[in-house]
């Protein structure tokens, strides 16, 4: 049976999970305003903005600490992400858990759930996954250098008019545009 039928059987009570045609995406401006309100709520409720890469750093640090605690504690780059109570008491880790839930919920309601490897027509799944993993690795390094990523620096720092954050936005976009030709066959 197809993935659609399998999913429909697995979660029978969840009608919207799979649609014959997925809903169109929402207006980017509306989604953006919604996102901005979430960010504003963060400022107002907990005096900080959103983020993402920090959660990855916390999880990685916790992993290293579990395997080699002395080594982790001795490395300042790892130790700074070792919070009391472990990653599950870390604000960003919990927030990212929310992101996963929210993303799932939205896709579920819109009929956009589905196992797939998104890629262009000219590249195979394996190659795409390699690019994805490699790109992720490079982003991890860049995000640590910059103390954040598109969520923490671009969105949060951008809204707070922080100079370093806008520098990040400028160089990230410029580099992405510059590197885009290198990866054209991955997408088109």
């Amino acid at each position, binding site marked *: 049976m*197809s*993935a*659609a039928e399998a*999913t429909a059987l697995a979660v029978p009570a969840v009608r919207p999970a*799979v649609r014959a*045609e*997925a809903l*169109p*995406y*929402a*207006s*980017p*401006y*509306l989604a953006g*305003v919604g996102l901005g309100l979430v960010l504003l709520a963060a400022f107002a409720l907990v005096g900080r903005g959103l983020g993402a890469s920090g959660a990855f750093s916390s999880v990685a640090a916790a992993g290293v600490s579990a395997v080699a605690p002395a080594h982790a504690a001795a490395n300042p780059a790892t130790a700074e992400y070792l919070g009391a109570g472990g990653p599950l008491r870390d604000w960003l880790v919990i927030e990212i858990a929310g992101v996963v839930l929210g993303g799932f919920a939205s896709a579920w309601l819109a009929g*956009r759930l*589905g196992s*797939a*490897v*998104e*890629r*262009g*027509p000219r590249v195979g*799944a394996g190659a795409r996954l390699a690019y994805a993993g490699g790109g992720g690795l490079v982003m991890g390094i860049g995000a640590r250098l910059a103390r954040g990523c598109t969520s923490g620096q671009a969105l949060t720092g951008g809204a707070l008019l922080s100079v370093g954050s806008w520098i990040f936005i400028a160089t990230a976009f410029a580099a992405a545009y510059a590197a885009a030709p290198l990866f054209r066959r991955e*997408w*088109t």
Partner: protein
Amino acid sequence: MTSWGKSTSPGAGEPDPSTSPGTGEVASLSGPERALSRGARNHRRTHRLLAGAAAVLAIAALAAGDRTAPAVSATGGARVDIAALARTVEAEEDHVTALELAAWIRERKPGLRVVDVRGAEDFAEFHLPNAENLTLAEVARAPFNPDETVVLYSEGGTHAAQGWFFLRARGIGHVYFLRGGLYEWMTEVVNPTLSADATPAQRAEFARTAELSRYFGGVPRIGGSAPTRVDDPAAELPGRSSEDGGGTTAAVRRVRQRGC
């Protein structure tokens, strides 16, 4: 389920009807696509509304200006936590020394604002690098951003301390004053003096001070008796009494003669 490998979902490299609502294309669209296009026109109206709202809020922001005095009422009264301020003074977190200020200026501390509260003539004759000239009344009203560090100074420090109180009463946190005023600047930064009977530790300290002093065009001196405490503005400045009446004006004249 649509095949995601060669994705046919909206926006995947093909014209996205929900974001590119060119009305001229309606005739060439099929039924469902025409429905999406109508939705796109509604979207356009919403987008225009949002853009308009943003513009209005931005213009209103310009008109409204910044919030100046959270703790000051319309008649100029203020609610002040005197106990907290007293604690700040006792902890010596209310002021900076001239050397600390000099270091901040040299390292271009971000957000540093040096404010000279003396009169315009005194300011014109000499002022600290990058200092602004504001009267105490202006200081009481001026907007300061939360991420700025404000350092007030005056000739002897008294007026600057008063300005410090006004700003603290307004709820502005990062404000300090130069306790010894320009007197302290002159004796500690422009003409720091190492006494002849200094300890090795004092000599080492002086080496750093001398370097900072030279950055500001100062002339470190060695010799003479131990310098007078500089938080007593009435005291005569060491090494000066034989030359002229002392005081800031004379010190300024000497500094300007060196052409810095």
